[in-house]
């Protein structure tokens, strides 16, 4: 998968000029935010659940080798096969080998960001295996030759009108079909795919080490079908998805749907515990669990960044991020966009290829506020910025400017005289010279879409000395406490 995360600003500027995207983002707008707020208001125990979830995740990451071994042993004990992949190429090789060994020609897939991360569909196509996306949003994107822009709502950036045009071309629905008719058309096409598929490939929301259970959370029922209709089920997970015990699961099942869509519960929760056993009438004959590293162990080994691996992919940080909501997910230039992407992608891919992402934030803190596992996202953004600066990934101009700024800010006399000179220059500018002359690069950037306040005649410090300092204190102050 191509990485263009070093060009966020360029992508974002283009996104802001795309009327179709803006329409889609505006419509998606506040619905997730409002539903989440209402759902949490009804929950009452949110803070306790959040603290518990954060603690379970932090503990699991501390002892990840232990829990992964237990998970692997449990899955094998159930008759499933365990595969470990070090990177994307390894993961793709394993899936295609499983497909070949199992005689698979058609795969139905559930939405899996990990499969996007490793570029699985292309790898399967190269191996002659047809892969069909069965999540409605992913199905739209696959038909339209596009990629997801949101962790849980992959086609968020598509308007329903655009979907109607696509389905008209590809599925023969009327050009003005409504969302219900479009969904029915997709459902009919997908039902045929489920029935002829040899293998279901799914992601994993949680993998329970104690029991070897893979937990899948969804609303469309496509995962339920993908894990039961085909004779083979391959589930793939990033190595951070393991949780210790089944008893830990209710906390996460309370937090995930509420944080993601504001639902009290998702429509389907599937707990897949190994392949079909004797006497059972449903479920796959063969079960494979693929555990993928692809950069995660590097993040795990880095204490300052490790918290990013707590993420349960609810998407709340995206829904609440005022930057994401302006530009959408593609601007981030890789699979994971929004605040979580801005801290995770540099960890997985390295800062050099993703250097714009830690800058793609006003540090407003809305992401941390809504994160159900308490990832301190702004702190991690600042850590990436610190590393970027110390690795010289920013421009020489910025380095020089900040060095000069710090030099002056430690020297009050110099600060006073330079700021006074700056204001005097500002007065001149206001008196007729062009503010767009370009000799003040930051100001000219500011002024492209915003006005700038006219500089004050006198700074506060000058007014203080000139008389404010000597104004009296009220001897009889009010004591209102209305």
């Amino acid at each position, binding site marked *: 998968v191509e990485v263009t995360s070093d060009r966020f600003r360029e992508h974002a500027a283009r996104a802001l000029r795309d009327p179709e995207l803006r329409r889609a983002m505006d419509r998606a707008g506040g619905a997730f935010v409002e539903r989440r707020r209402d759902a949490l208001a009804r929950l009452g125990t949110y803070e306790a659940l959040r603290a518990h979830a954060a603690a379970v995740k932090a503990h699991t990451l501390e002892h990840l080798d232990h829990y992964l071994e237990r998970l692997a042993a449990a899955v094998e004990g159930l008759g499933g096969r365990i595969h470990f992949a070090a990177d994307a190429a390894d993961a793709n090789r394993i899936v295609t080998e499983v497909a070949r060994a199992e005689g698979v020609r058609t795969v139905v897939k559930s939405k899996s960001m990990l499969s996007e991360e490793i570029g699985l569909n292309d790898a399967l196509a190269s191996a002659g295996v047809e892969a069909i996306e069965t999540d409605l949003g992913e199905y739209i994107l696959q038909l339209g030759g596009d990629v997801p822009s949101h962790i849980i709502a992959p086609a968020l950036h598509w308007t329903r009108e655009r979907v109607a045009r696509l389905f008209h071309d590809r599925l023969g629905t009327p050009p003005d079909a409504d969302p219900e008719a479009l969904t029915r058309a997709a459902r009919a096409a997908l039902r045929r795919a489920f029935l002829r598929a040899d293998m279901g490939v799914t992601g994993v929301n949680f993998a329970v080490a104690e029991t070897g259970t893979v937990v899948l959370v969804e609303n469309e029922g496509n995962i339920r079908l993908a894990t039961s209709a085909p004779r083979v089920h391959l589930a793939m997970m990033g190595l951070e998805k393991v949780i210790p015990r089944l008893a830990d699961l209710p906390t996460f099942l309370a937090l995930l749907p509420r944080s993601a869509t504001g639902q009290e519960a998702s429509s389907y929760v599937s707990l897949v515990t190994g392949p079909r056993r004797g006497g059972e009438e449903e479920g796959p004959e063969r079960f494979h669990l693929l555990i993928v590293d692809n950069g995660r162990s590097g993040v795990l080994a880095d204490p300052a960044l490790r918290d990013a691996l707590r993420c349960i992919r609810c998407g709340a940080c995206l829904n609440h991020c005022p*930057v994401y909501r302006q530009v959408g997910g593609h601007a981030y230039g890789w699979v994971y966009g929004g605040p979580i992407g801005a801290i995770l992608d540099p960890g997985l891919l390295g800062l050099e290829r993703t250097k714009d992402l830690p*800058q793609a934030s006003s540090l*407003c803190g809305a992401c941390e506020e809504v994160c159900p596992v308490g990832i301190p996202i702004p702190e991690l953004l600042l850590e990436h910025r610190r590393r970027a*600066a110390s690795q010289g990934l920013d421009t020489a101009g910025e380095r020089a400017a900040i060095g000069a700024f710090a030099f002056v800010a*430690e020297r009050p006399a110099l600060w006073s005289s330079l700021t006074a000179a700056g204001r005097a220059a500002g007065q001149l500018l206001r008196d007729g010279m062009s503010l767009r002359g370009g000799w003040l690069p930051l100001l000219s950037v500011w002024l492209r*879409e915003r006005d700038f306040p006219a500089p*004050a005649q006198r700074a*506060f410090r000058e007014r203080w000395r000139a008389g404010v300092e000597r104004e009296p*204190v009220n001897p009889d102050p009010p004591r209102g406490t209305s």
Partner: protein
Amino acid sequence: VVGLKVALFATCLGDQLFPDAVVAAVRLLRHLGVEVEFPEAQTCCGQPAYNAGYHREAAAIARHHLEVFSGAEHVVVPSGSCGAMLRAHYPALLAGDGRAGAAALDLAGRTVELTTFVTDVLGVGDVGADLRGLRVTYHDSCHALRSMGVGAAPRRLLRAAGAELIEAHDADVCCGFGGLFAVKMPEVSSAMARSKVEGVVATGAEVLTSTDAGCLMQLAGSASRAGARVRAAHVAELLWEGVQRASGASAGGG
């Protein structure tokens, strides 16, 4: 609490671009019986360097301000963002340095945002201002709200003054300023400001107010470019105007 003495941290934006707001803060505090000092060696809190990833440079600026404010019982800041720099980030920046780290924690404990100082330290919920008939909308500065817990205090003071407080649907959404973010990602920053200005205009308020000059500069700059007729004023300015109106006094010098 008469006789309380505070050091004012004007902040560089307040000092250089919004001196009226800082003068209003001084007068408001004195109106409430507080003695105000202005240690003149203060400059900028260093947040631009810190947020850009230059911790060594930011730490040097932090050390300078530990000196500047070393004697003050309370450091009152008419900004949630610069206040958060002193309260939350100085201790983190200097954590590796025993003495400076301890001094930073000490300063953090003495640093308080202006409106919270009034409500929580002075225990004053009504400054004796008259803002009756004024339609105001309040913008939550992100750092005031999320790093300093400031949101109730300014609203309480404005309501007590009789202002009609009209909440924008996105009052707690970022304005897009973000310090250097405003010029590093100018397109996104400006788009964020435009969305916020739409929310402000939809309230029908005459005045947009906030605890933070940075947000006000961003929003006023965007509103003025869009031709929106809304005045942006720091909450200290509004409250001081209300005090003057209540006492029937003329505008002071300055």
